[in-house]
């Protein structure tokens, strides 16, 4: 299979300095990305997932040339991002920072024509391509309205249009559906699938596991600056064969309770999340036992004077794979 993006032995180390009265008293090396290797094949949708601070953003920035690697190399369509940045950038259309990456005081059309010019299109080409993209994204007569009047979904569409304007073989989408209502997110996902159908390569980051599961051909999970898993969503899920998951909503979940469950035989991971809207806690428990463990968990909850609001025995999802590998929820 032909490679669209090659990431080879990529490292990015930052030096953090502790200062006292302008004097550096301590220097510490922080490995944001530590020997990351992966290839993205032409025509696939490749997901890069990781909790905050895992090295995902640094990796993306190095792929787009915004960040200089400490060592290693990135090739986009065979062009070295570091040595030939202009040629490499011609091959990538990007959505970073979502709706903030476009000009709100310009119309959707003006935005796309502007970025078209920066990608070297002449006036006529920029106008033609803008027209085609506006039609495809379904602006329905709003293409000449100021972006500031648009909903978040529409603004995000303009940002996506900006990524499509160069007609580049690789499209990088960083959190493209963040903050969108379900219908707008669904529409955008369909557009992403259309991009794939055209034979273009998509590199996607998202906080929505279902989205990654639905869209991606392969997924890389990054944590602590390293790729800890890379496979198709199906294979990642099947790697959880022996592991079962229980999700319990509780009125409260003390550290003592979490610790007690963790100590139980056959419990592999316990993740506690607080849900702001319902003011409740969710415990996700991964275990290798049959269902006999459920009673033990219920007993432990009663002893810790918490109330069970809901309990589900669930099939391991991609989110469970993520939790199992990183010990964190994706939203952390």
């Amino acid at each position: 299979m032909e490679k669209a993006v090659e990431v080879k032995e990529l490292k990015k180390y930052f030096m953090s300095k502790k200062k006292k009265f302008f004097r550096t008293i301590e220097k510490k090396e922080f490995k944001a990305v530590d020997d990351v290797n992966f290839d993205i094949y032409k025509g696939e949708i490749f997901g890069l997932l990781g909790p905050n601070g895992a090295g995902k953003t640094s990796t993306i920035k190095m792929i787009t040339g915004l960040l200089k690697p400490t060592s290693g190399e990135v090739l986009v369509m065979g062009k070295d991002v570091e040595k030939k940045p202009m040629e490499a950038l011609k091959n990538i259309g990007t959505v970073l920072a979502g709706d903030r990456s476009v000009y709100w005081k310009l119309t959707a059309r003006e935005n796309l024509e502007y970025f078209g010019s920066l990608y070297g299109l002449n006036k006529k080409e920029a106008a033609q391509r803008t027209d085609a993209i506006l039609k495809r994204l379904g602006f329905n007569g709003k293409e000449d309205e100021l972006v500031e009047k648009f909903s978040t979904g529409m603004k995000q569409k303009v940002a996506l249009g900006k990524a499509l304007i160069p007609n580049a073989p690789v499209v990088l989408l960083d959190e493209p559906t963040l903050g969108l209502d379900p219908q707008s997110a669904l529409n955008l996902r369909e557009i992403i699938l259309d991009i794939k159908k055209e034979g273009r390569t998509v590199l996607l980051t998202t906080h929505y596991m279902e989205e990654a599961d639905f869209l991606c051909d392969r997924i890389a999970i990054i944590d602590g600056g390293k790729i800890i898993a890379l496979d198709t969503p199906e294979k990642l899920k099947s790697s959880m064969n022996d592991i079962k998951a229980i999700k319990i909503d509780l009125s409260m979940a003390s550290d003592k309770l979490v610790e007690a469950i963790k100590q139980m035989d056959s419990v592999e991971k316990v993740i506690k999340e607080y849900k702001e809207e319902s003011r409740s806690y969710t415990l996700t428990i991964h275990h290798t036992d049959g269902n006999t463990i459920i009673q033990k968990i219920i007993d432990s909850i009663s002893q810790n004077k918490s109330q069970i609001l809901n309990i589900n025995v669930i099939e391991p999802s991609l989110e469970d794979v993520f939790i199992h590998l990183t010990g964190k929820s994706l939203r952390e």
Partner: protein
Amino acid sequence: MRRLRTITAVVKKDAIQMVRYPTWIIQIIIWPLIFPLMYILSALGFAGPSSAGVETFKMAAGTGSFKGFIVVGTMAWMWVNTTMWGFGTYLREEQMRGTLEANWLCPIKKFDLLIGGAVVAMFQAIIISAVSVLEYRFVYGIHFTGNPLLWILMFLIMIPGVYGLGILFASLVLWAKQANAAVNVVRGTMMILCGITFPITIMPSFMQSLAKLIPFTYGISATRQIMVSGGTLSMVSKDIYMCLLEGIILVILGRIAFKYTENKVKNLGSLERF
């Protein structure tokens, strides 16, 4: 051709946005009127009831038209000021808006973004200068001397210095993520050293030496000689050479600083941080 297309696109985009934020029109009409007024009124007060101080001023400045001296100084300064900060504030605005990264990701020379941003600022400065000439002629009753083409030439010779210092300032913005403090310090210092409202000969000698390191000191001096004192091109040739020479040195320093800062920002990945 490609670079010209980038610059044209930035100019068009910024011009559209400028028109959609129309408060600058008020600034263009009101600012030239207000800016020199404070200095003119101070001068009137210091000259005394019989304007006896004007003679002393004439000896130091070479002209008795203190109003003309002040308005030409402030006008030249407004030209420098509007364009020069255009570079840094352009980057800062893009950074705050969140669009700087989107531009940086395009296959373009990043320096061309600055040029495009400054062209719009220069367009604003041209309008301010034109409005200023009309307002000073008809509101303050100033009689300008010399050929209007020479006036334009005087403003043009200051462009290299404006670009040089502007790029240095833009590099600082990219590096320090802060524009206001630097603007205030540099603006205040230069307003004094360039002698926009007084002859620099009244400053202590060390300040005069510092003033000679700034191209605008020569540019403003040449503009005054042409527009107020009726000087000819040959009379101001030394000022013109010095203004251009120092301006070109600043452009070279600015390019080096911008390249260095661009690399630093790339190493830290701090482009969008503010």
